C-alpha cells in the first residue's frame, strides 16, 4: 500500500469527504452560484459538467475558500470550511486548477515536493519521508520517470501529471480537478481518467470538472450538471447525460447512445448534413 492510500484508507469507504449545502456565491457583483449542493464520498469520482460560464470553476474555488460564500456551508472531512485554517485545509483537500502556473525551470520532483508545504514549518526542510512521499506521488501520477525533467520540457499531458503529483503529495483524502483533460489528445485524456479511477480505488474522493460529456459519463460514478449557477440534474451518468438535458442546457442537438451495451452513455453531435451546409 502506498503512503498516500494509507491515509485515505483510514477513512471508511462510505465517509462523506465533502458536503456543500445551498451555496450562493457572488463574484465581482454577479451572482454565479445559486443554492448549489454537492457531496463527495471516499472512493468516489463525481463529475461536474455544464456549459462554459455555468459556475463549475467558481464552485471549486468556493469549496476551498477562495471564493467567499454569501450563504450556505461547506464541510471538508467533517470540518466546517469557515473554521478551518489554511494549512489544515491544505492537508484535507488538494486542487489542480485548469491552468496552474510554475516556473518552467523547476523540475517535476521539485514541484511534487512543494506539495509537502502544508506539513512544513517556516524553517523546516523536507525530510527523507517527505521526499519518499513526493516520489510515490510521482509514481502514482505516472511521472516518476520525469522526476529530473524541468516543467518547460514537458508535453501538455506530462505537465498535467506533474501537477497531479504535487496535489497527491499533499496526502489529502479529497482531490479537486478542474478540467484535467483540457487540450489533451484522446490517449492522454484516457490515461488521466484511468489515473483518477485508480486514486478513487485507493479511497480518494475526487470531484472533477469535465467538458467532454462522453468522458464524464465513462469515468465518473455520479454527475452533477450545472447551468447558470444551478444544479439542473444529478445522479448516475445515464440519468444525467440525456439528449433532453444536453439540448436544454447546451442548446445543441445531440444523439445520446444510451442502450448499446455500453456501461455509459455516448454523446454524438447531430451535425447538419455537410453537403447541405456547404450550399
Amino acid at each position, binding site marked *: 500500500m502506498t503512503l498516500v492510500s494509507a491515509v485515505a484508507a483510514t477513512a471508511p469507504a462510505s465517509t462523506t469527504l465533502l458536503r456543500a449545502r445551498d451555496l450562493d456565491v457572488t463574484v465581482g457583483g454577479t451572482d454565479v452560484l445559486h443554492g448549489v449542493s454537492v457531496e463527495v464520498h471516499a472512493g468516489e469520482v463525481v463529475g461536474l459538467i455544464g456549459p462554459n460560464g455555468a459556475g463549475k470553476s467558481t464552485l471549486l*474555488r468556493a469549496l*476551498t475558500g*477562495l471564493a467567499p460564500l454569501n450563504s450556505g456551508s461547506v464541510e471538508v472531512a467533517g470540518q466546517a470550511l469557515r473554521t478551518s485554517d*489554511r*494549512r489544515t*485545509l*491544505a*492537508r484535507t*483537500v*488538494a*486542487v489542480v*486548477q485548469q491552468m*496552474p*502556473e*510554475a*516556473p*518552467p*525551470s*523547476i*523540475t517535476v*520532483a*521539485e514541484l511534487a*515536493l*512543494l*506539495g509537502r*508545504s*502544508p506539513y*512544513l514549518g*517556516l*524553517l*523546516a*526542510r*523536507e525530510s527523507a519521508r517527505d*521526499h*519518499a512521499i*513526493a*516520489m510515490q506521488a*510521482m*509514481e502514482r501520477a505516472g511521472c*516518476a520517470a520525469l*522526476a*529530473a525533467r*524541468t516543467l*518547460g520540457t514537458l508535453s501538455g499531458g506530462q505537465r498535467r501529471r506533474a501537477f497531479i503529483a504535487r496535489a497527491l503529495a*499533499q496526502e489529502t483524502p479529497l482531490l479537486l480537478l478542474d478540467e484535467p483533460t483540457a487540450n489533451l489528445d484522446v490517449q492522454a485524456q484516457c490515461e488521466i481518467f484511468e489515473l483518477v479511477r485508480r486514486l478513487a480505488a485507493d479511497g480518494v474522493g475526487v470531484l472533477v470538472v469535465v467538458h467532454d460529456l462522453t468522458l464524464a459519463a465513462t469515468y465518473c460514478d455520479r454527475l452533477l450538471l450545472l447551468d447558470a449557477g444551478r444544479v439542473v440534474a444529478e445522479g448516475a451518468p445515464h440519468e444525467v447525460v440525456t439528449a433532453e438535458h444536453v439540448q436544454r442546457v447546451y442548446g445543441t442537438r445531440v444523439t445520446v447512445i444510451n442502450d448499446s451495451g455500453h456501461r455509459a452513455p455516448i454523446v454524438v453531435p447531430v451535425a447538419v448534413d455537410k453537403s447541405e451546409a456547404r450550399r
Partner: protein
Amino acid sequence: MSARTAQLVGRLGRRSGGLVPAAGAVVALLALVALAGAMVGTTSIPAGVVLASAWNALPFAGARIDVPEGWERIVIDVRLPRVLTAGLVGAALATSGTAYQGVFRNALADPFLLGVASGAALGAALGIVLPIEGALPFGWVPLLAFAGAVIAVTLAYLAAKVGDSVSNASLILSGVAVSAMAGAATSFILLTAGERALTIFGFLFGSFNTANWPRAIGGLPYLAAGVAVLLLHARVLNVLQLDEEQATQLGIDVPRTRIIVLAAASLVAATAVAMAGVIGFVGLIVPHITRLIFGGDYRRLLPLAALLGAAFLIAADVLARVALRPQEVPVGIITAIVGGPFFLSLMRARRGGLR
C-alpha cells in the same frame, strides 16, 4: 524502496541539498575580493600589511605585528570600512532583489521597483540642499535618504491597496507613479541646486568614497533584521513561485506573506541606498546569476545571493578605483558596464535562459 526509486530520490535531492560546498566556494571568493579591496587604491598596500593591520585592530589580538603606521591607518580608517560598506550594500541589494523577484514572480523586478531609489534620492537631495546641520556622526543625508525610501514604498503600497487586497500589477503601477513623482521633485531640486547638484549626482550614481565606520555600523541592525525576515520566509518563497491560488491551496497566507517579505526587502534596500547612494543593476542581475549557477531554491538562493552580491560589489568598487586612476568612476557605472556583458554571456550559455 526499489533501486529505481532510490535512484530517483537521489536525483530529487540533487538540487535541493549541498548548501555548504556552494557557500564555501562563494565565501572563498568573497575573502579574496575583500583582500583585494583593501590592497588597491591611490596607494597600493601589500596583502601582508592589510592582514597584519586587521589583526592589530582586533580587540583580543595579542602581540602587535609591526607595520608602517601610515599604511595601517589607511587600511583601518579608509579601506576596511569601504570594503565592509560595499560588501553590506552588495549583499543587501542582491537579497532584496531576490525577494522582490520572488514576490512579483517577475524576472524584471528589482529592489527599486516600488520607489526605494527615487524616494531615497529625493530624501538625499533635500538633505544636501536644505540648510540643516546636526550632531549626527554621518550627516543628515543617509537619514533623509532612508526616510525618503521608506515613505515612497509605503505610499506606493497604500495607493495600490483596495480594501484588504493588493494586486501585484497595481503595486508595480503605483510604484512607477510614486517613482515618477519623486524623480520629478529630485530633478527640480537638481536644477535649482547650483554647485550642490554635483553632490546630488554623486548620490544618484552611488559611491563608496565617503564610507566610514559609523555609517557602516549604523546600517547593520536594519540590514540584519530585514535579511533575517527574508531568510525566515525562504521556503515560503519557494511555494510563491506557483501562482497565488496554488500557493493559497498549499496553506500559504499569500497577501500577508507578500507584505512581510516586501516590507523586509524594502527596508534592506532603503538601508543600502542610505549607505551608498543609488547603485543599480546589482539587485537585478546578482539574483539571476545566483539562480543560474545554483538553482532556484530560495533557501540556497537568498544566502548565496547575499554572498555573491557582496563579492560583486566589492570587486566593482575595486575597478571603480583603478579604472581611471587617480580619478574614481561612480561604482554604479562599473556594475552596469562590467556586469551587463557578464550576465548576458552567462544567460546565453545556459540554454534554458531565465525563468
